[in-house]
């Protein structure tokens, strides 16, 4: 492997950061609750057992940071309906096993539908180039995957290609979570990779609106610990600011070309996020000039009525940062990676899947 200095995993540095966190938590004299909004942060925290060494009085919870998990059930139903109507549906691997109202894409595939796993929007467009059938790309994810979807549409994909957009934009969801009366948050860790597209300025409005510090963080254990130090320093000083703690990848202005593509193709509209309910302007819809590629406008999609079916799955509560995977009665018993009940156990970015894979932090 690379050296410790390059891999941001050095135990001595981690110890020093931990000591600083301990002093800072004592200085703010409180019970500090930090929310991160990214499955990759959750994975770093779980893989390295970071929660086991956080000082008493500092809690780090995961918020709506798993794109597969926040994809709403009716969106899955639309993809299933298109697959069952005989079209080729291409999507990211994680989405295939997420349960819809009646079935998942995997179940549709088992029953004969043509559902393909792809690694990118351009791969889905390539499938369309090799067939006369309609190919629908079920597009999920945040800014990091929405920008590449936009790029494919701008390049003029084949006429038999369309996009079923479930893309979402994170900053407004942070607002919704911060506003929620049942969720107490003292600061956010923002996802470093999404910020490579959006830049850091986008978080200024979150800071202003809620008077909460936001730190853009990377994904190695030292990145996470250092970002927490910055966040607590802000809290100690009573300052709410945006800090870029991941400058080796993130420019404050973000990636201009990716952003141009993103907003030329997509507009923000109200939409449902699983668990967080309606977010006013955080679902990405394809704009008018690209309407011919919008699967919702190309096809009549009939989906089953949401039966509001009761389940003990608390994925929604977890996504909103109000519960942890081990609070769920199904966790590890009725719900496991091999027979998941909720999306949080399906996706590699899902907090339940991550807890399960990494065994959980050592409990005292």
């Amino acid at each position: 492997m690379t050296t410790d200095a390059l891999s941001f995993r050095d135990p001595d540095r981690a110890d020093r950061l931990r000591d600083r966190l301990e002093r800072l938590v004592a200085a703010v004299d409180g019970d500090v609750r930090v929310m991160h909004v990214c499955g990759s942060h959750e994975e770093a925290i779980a893989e390295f057992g970071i929660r086991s060494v956080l000082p008493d009085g500092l809690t780090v919870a995961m918020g709506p940071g798993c794109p597969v998990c926040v994809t709403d059930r009716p969106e899955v139903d639309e993809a299933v309906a298109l697959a069952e109507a005989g079209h080729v549906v291409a999507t990211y691997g994680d989405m295939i096993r997420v349960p819809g109202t009646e079935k998942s894409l995997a179940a549709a595939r088992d029953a004969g539908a043509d559902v393909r796993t792809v690694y990118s929007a351009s791969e889905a467009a390539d499938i369309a180039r090799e067939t006369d059938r309609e190919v629908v790309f079920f597009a999920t994810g945040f800014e990091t995957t929405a920008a590449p979807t936009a790029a494919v549409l701008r390049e003029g994909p084949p006429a038999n290609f369309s996009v079923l957009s479930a893309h979402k934009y994170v900053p407004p969801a942070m607002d919704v979570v911060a506003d929620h009366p049942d969720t107490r948050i003292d600061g956010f860790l923002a996802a470093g990779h999404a910020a490579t597209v959006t830049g850091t300025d986008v978080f200024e409005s979150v800071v202003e609106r809620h008077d909460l510090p936001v730190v853009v963080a990377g994904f190695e254990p030292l990145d996470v610990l250092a970002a927490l130090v910055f966040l607590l320093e802000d809290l100690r000083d009573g300052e709410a600011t945006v800090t870029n703690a991941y400058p080796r990848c993130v420019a404050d202005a973000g990636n201009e070309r990716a952003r141009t593509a993103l907003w030329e193709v997509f507009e923000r509209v109200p939409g449902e996020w699983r668990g967080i309910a309606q977010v006013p302007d955080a679902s990405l819809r394809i704009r008018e000039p690209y309407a011919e590629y919008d699967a919702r406008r190309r096809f009549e999609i009939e989906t089953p009525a949401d039966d509001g079916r009761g389940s003990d799955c608390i994925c929604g509560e977890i996504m909103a940062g109000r519960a942890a995977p081990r609070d769920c009665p199904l966790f590890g018993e009725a719900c496991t990676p091999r027979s998941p009940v909720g999306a949080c156990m399906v996706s590699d970015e899902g907090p339940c899947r991550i807890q399960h894979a990494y065994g959980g932090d050592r409990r005292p």
Partner: protein
Amino acid sequence: MTDRTVTLAHGAGTERTRELLADLVVDRFGDAPADPAGVGLAALDDGAVLPTDDGAVVITTDSHVVDPPSFPGGDVGRLAACGTINDLAAMGATDPLGLSSAVVVEAGTPVDRVDAYLDSMAAVCDRVGCPVRTGDTKVVRDGEVDEVVVTTTGVARIERGAHLPAAGLSPGDRLVVSGPVGDHGVALLAAREDFEFASPLTSDVAPVAHLVAAAREVGRVTAATDPTRGGFATAVNELADAADLGLVVEERAVPVADATAGAAEVLGIDPLTVACEGRIVLGVAPEDAERVRDRLRDEPGGADARIVGRAVADHPGEVVLDTGVGERYLPVPTGETLPRIC
């Protein structure tokens, strides 16, 4: 009657494998041996110990299917010989009497290929001094197996009570691993998927009997297991489970080859959860641990031996992984990480 079917995940050496064994096999054949010095099926150890009047016989058997049958660092013949010799060694039987070998071949397989696999098997047997004494060959129709299935059985004689039970650890015992983990599983996955990495990935498949023998010469070895299916993570969980003790593993002490670590990161798998075929994990009395490690380092295949953890009375049955940054539990991998690699 149930409508359940066997899935690939049942064969991945994980929790599901244990469930299937418990359901189908242990219920039927799991009666404890009459002689307390014996080890039977219910122990789910690496082999059985059958006490005799003047000692004990150790016996173990294993079927080997691997995709691809020939891979960087070895082939199914070498794997079949090493797998069984190593299971005997993990029981403390380091001087096997001989092997049996049953080969099922798919019609249409070039004879040269089978010849090459048997050459590989013979080379290992010569080195260990463990000849193949009996065998069987069957040919099945095209498509009924994927080229070849090799089943080997090994027999050894040991002194009464000299076997190494999986449950032998005591609090304070150190865990010693004989070399880098995960090489076999990662090399196989890369070969199967045709991934090419800048650094060559090579399976570690090799006999470990001499390592176990060398360790026992210089120190008190209390437990042993070879981390094959399910890898190091499964092996240490089995040791913790069998002894009903906790284990603490220092993740940074567990050796992982640079090439394997890099490829595993790219493939999104944890090298601790994939198979080794030329390593042994030993429980060693604390005062002897450094001596055993140093002795292993003098042996072929033991150059990177390390002390990687210790047994504790806390958290019985669970393995705590100290990552250098924090601590978490190291679970047995669930489901099908890598099918058919051993």
